[in-house]
């Protein structure tokens, strides 16, 4: 394993080196450029040379469980954020909540551009014969390709409804996802394509026949009218390239320069996965595609397959332990072996809501502890999430209203009003628990501004959201900042009982001057608020403009931030 860690460490930090070349070369490199903060992370290189590369499930599982790939340093500030601690739009992520007006109806519509597969004959071009439930690839009358998956028998709506609901929420949160619809397939509308191939579990690939379709459909449960409820997933635009790993970069993509474990949206994905109990957040449930963008081939990164989320385990209800343990935990195994089965894991004490339509979820989510949530397989990006990454995710999650939840859960068409109501309630409770945990775990100063006179105002995200009491006051250290030498010079320290502070005498007035203000809380309900947020403002003619915000600068100990 030594070579493994060497490889991963080397790969991950070399990108950091490239990104921070200015700092390495000399303090003469500016901390801020004129275009900071950037709103878009652009792909400037043509990626047409990228080739499909599949990730092996077993290798990915074993490697993440036993090898811990990626940067060994778990306290590294996210590397794809801009200077104000935000994630720019990119081929990975689009800022939606809070940036564009997203009504409940808009979220419920999500990424959808169609109503699903066009009714009529569906030409079956491929099938999935392994696993518990079948899967088909079809082309509808419009020529659009769709992937169809079924609910496990006895759980109508569980996997398909969950997939639709989670897809829409992940889209709202900013990720690239596929267009998923609930549709109904009639056996009579299936036409097997001449070139459709079928590969039995043991056997050679051969031409597919209708009898194969019938055999596969025996694993699915028909509706009373004989049709089959399916999730129809629209084929993504572009050439499929396989999934992306949650560590290192894709070595054949010139634009992929930030190790994936250091991408904030992938770290934050762990918070959203915890919220949605998306335990299957692993590499093979992602997909890169090669698309054309501004006349250039670039790689777009998507998240897929949300069938193992909420109360669904995909092919059965979610297991009791899921979300609380990894598939393999050696210390837990040792404890259980020695304990002769009498050391019951904590999930034995949880009361679960269970229903065929939605599967199994804890009945009471008000005491949900997101920091203890685990996917089935260790995810290297999740493992490197710091409090500032979790804060970023929690801020986004706080924008998901109950109204949005109700609208989105309705799109799952679970046909079980009580379970739908429970889901809305559970998602709301889990959201609130996450917001409570992560908005308070680091200094929550947000939306800072300086007016012409230099008066600083800001908000406290935790108190605004009502998840923490207001601190006794705030303290600010006002410094001048030299953007070339990175040197600072203290002007004064001020304090205020509220989140508004007049500037002290002596702040610079020259255009392009930069002020650094370190804002911390006093008498705060959380010790983590004692650590300052570093704010940087640049003077432009008659205004101060925010150009930098560092909630947890590199080098600051994580432990100091934790409750």
């Amino acid at each position, binding site marked *: 394993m030594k070579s493994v860690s060497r490889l991963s460490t080397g790969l991950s*930090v070399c990108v950091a080196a490239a990104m921070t070349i200015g700092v390495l070369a000399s303090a*003469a490199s500016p901390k801020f450029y004129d275009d900071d903060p950037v709103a878009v992370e*652009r792909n400037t290189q043509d990626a047409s040379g990228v080739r499909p590369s599949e990730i092996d499930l077993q*290798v990915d599982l074993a490697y993440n469980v036993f090898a811990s790939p990626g940067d060994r340093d778990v306290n590294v500030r996210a590397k794809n954020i801009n200077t104000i601690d935000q994630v720019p739009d990119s081929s990975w992520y689009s800022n939606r909540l809070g940036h564009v007006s997203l009504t409940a109806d808009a979220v419920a519509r999500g990424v959808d551009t169609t109503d699903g597969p066009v009714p009529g004959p569906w030409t079956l071009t491929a099938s999935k014969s392994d696993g518990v439930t079948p899967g088909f690839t079809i082309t509808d009358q419009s020529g659009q390709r769709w992937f169809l998956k079924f609910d496990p028998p006895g759980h109508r709506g569980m996997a398909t409804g969950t997939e639709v609901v989670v897809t829409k929420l992940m889209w709202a949160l900013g990720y690239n996802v596929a267009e998923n619809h609930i549709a109904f397939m009639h056996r009579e509308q299936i036409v097997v394509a001449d070139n459709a191939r079928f590969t039995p579990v043991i*056997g050679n690939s051969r031409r597919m026949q209708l009898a194969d379709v*019938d055999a596969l459909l025996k694993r699915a449960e028909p509706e009373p009218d004989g049709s089959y409820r399916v999730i129809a997933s629209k084929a993504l635009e572009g050439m499929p390239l396989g999934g992306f790993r949650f560590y290192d970069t894709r070595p054949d993509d010139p634009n992929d320069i930030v190790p994936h474990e250091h991408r904030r949206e992938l770290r934050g994905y762990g918070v959203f996965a915890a919220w949605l109990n998306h335990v299957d957040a692993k590499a093979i449930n992602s997909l890169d595609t090669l698309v054309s963008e501004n006349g250039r081939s670039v790689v777009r990164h998507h998240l897929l397959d949300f069938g193992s989320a909420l109360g669904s385990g995909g092919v059965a209800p979610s297991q*009791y332990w899921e979300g609380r343990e990894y598939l393999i935990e050696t210390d837990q195994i040792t404890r259980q072996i020695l304990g002769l089965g009498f050391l019951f894991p904590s999930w034995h004490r949880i009361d679960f809501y269970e229903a065929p339509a939605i599967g199994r979820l804890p009945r009471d989510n008000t005491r949900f502890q997101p920091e203890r949530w685990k996917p089935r397989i260790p995810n290297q990006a999740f493992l490197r999430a710091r409090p500032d990454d979790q804060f970023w995710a929690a801020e986004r999650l706080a924008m998901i209203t109950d109204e949005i939840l109700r609208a989105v859960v309705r799109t799952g068409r679970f046909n079980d009003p009580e379970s739908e109501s429970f889901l809305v309630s559970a998602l709301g409770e889990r959201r609130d628990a996450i917001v409570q945990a992560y908005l308070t775990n680091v200094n929550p100063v947000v939306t800072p501004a300086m007016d012409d006179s230099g008066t600083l105002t800001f908000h406290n995200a935790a108190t605004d959201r009502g998840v923490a009491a207001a601190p006794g006051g705030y303290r600010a250290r006002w410094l001048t900042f030299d953007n070339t030498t990175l040197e600072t010079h203290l002007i004064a320290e001020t304090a205020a009982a509220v989140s508004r502070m007049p500037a002290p005498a002596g702040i610079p007035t020259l255009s392009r001057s930069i002020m650094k203000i370190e804002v911390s809380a006093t008498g705060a309900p959380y010790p983590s608020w004692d650590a300052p947020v570093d704010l940087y403002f640049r003077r432009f003619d008659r205004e101060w403009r925010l150009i930098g915000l560092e909630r947890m600068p590199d080098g600051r100990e994580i432990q100091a931030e934790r409750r």
Partner: protein
Amino acid sequence: MRISDSIRKCRWARVAIGVLFTMGGVGTVTVPALAQQTREEELATAQAAKATDLHPWVPSSAERRIEMITRLMVPRVGWYPFIGSVFPGGSVAAGPGYRSGFGGSGGFDVHVARSVKSFSAGETLVTLPDISSGRVQVALLANWTNAPRVRFYGIGPASSDRNETLLPYRATTVGGSVRVNLARLVAVGGTIGYLDVQRTGPAPDEGPAPHVFSSSNVPGLGATPAFVRTHAFAQVDSRLSPGYATSGGLYRIDWSSYATSGNGPYSFARFDAEVVQLIPLFRENWVIALRALQSVTQTSAGNAVPYFLMPDLGGGGSLRGYPSWRFRDRSRTLFGAEYRWMANRFLEMALFSDAGTVTSRLRGIRRSNLHTSYGVGGRLHSPAATMLRVDLARTSEGMGLVVAFGPSF
């Protein structure tokens, strides 16, 4: 990790620095004069630097090893390594195998293997394509087994381990079987085949057999009969999978007829009944597994059950801790109980106890005849199959270790 170290290890980061310095018109670290005026330029420069050193994903040596292991473990069409047992008491065997499919759901599997105790076997199994959408399954089997040193202790519950001797057994089997799935849990079926026994004991230089055992007190010793075997079964199986389950039960009866074709008085019938019940407790953290098995044989006048086809006890599947074939007689009774607990999704532990005996007559079963064993075991399993079972058991004759590739029951 210092940044300079990381750059040394990363070719395209080195290239990036080179590009930057070149663009600045200088060549030393101390005079950077970077060309970028914007953040976008900085990102573009890093992307341009990476574009000079693109390559496909290169798996690490650890990834390659994991991939190789998983390829060996996952059933695939083509050549594969067979690892398992070729005959009870033969220990672990290995050899090459080949699998293929035909006609949709049909399959062909052939393997040859040799065990660490020099037992060898070759087997061909042809599974015909499903009939009636899988309701009817037909298979054809041909097997050749050579077990040169099979343990033998005598007949009856009181056989002594001091009389252990090693007897050869070599046989060829050909036949066909049919299974009809009447309902989701209910199946019936049968087999018809030909069993040609080519060699049985004694082995003159192996143990006291010539002095203690003879054809007069051991039916079939030294005989090489051939049989037409007819077999039928009926079962109700509510377990998720016969390979691994945590709930459900198996209720099964088997009837077999062995008819010699004029080369010995060894025709007999055999009846087996088995009940297995799995009781999950506390969200399957515990499973109480219970088993009862009864086997009886019947002969017509002048016939005897040959020792190598008698019901037996011992080995990994019954009365664990005792060696394979430890007890043989015309009837057997076996009870098993296990307390299983989940150590992990893929590892199950068990405390177990077996009790059983063999007798010449069903009415000969006495509590005083029962042999017992108890022990602890661990089982690596997938959701539907037991891949490796290791049981350590204690008996009145000492400790025994079982290494098997299937469930205990």
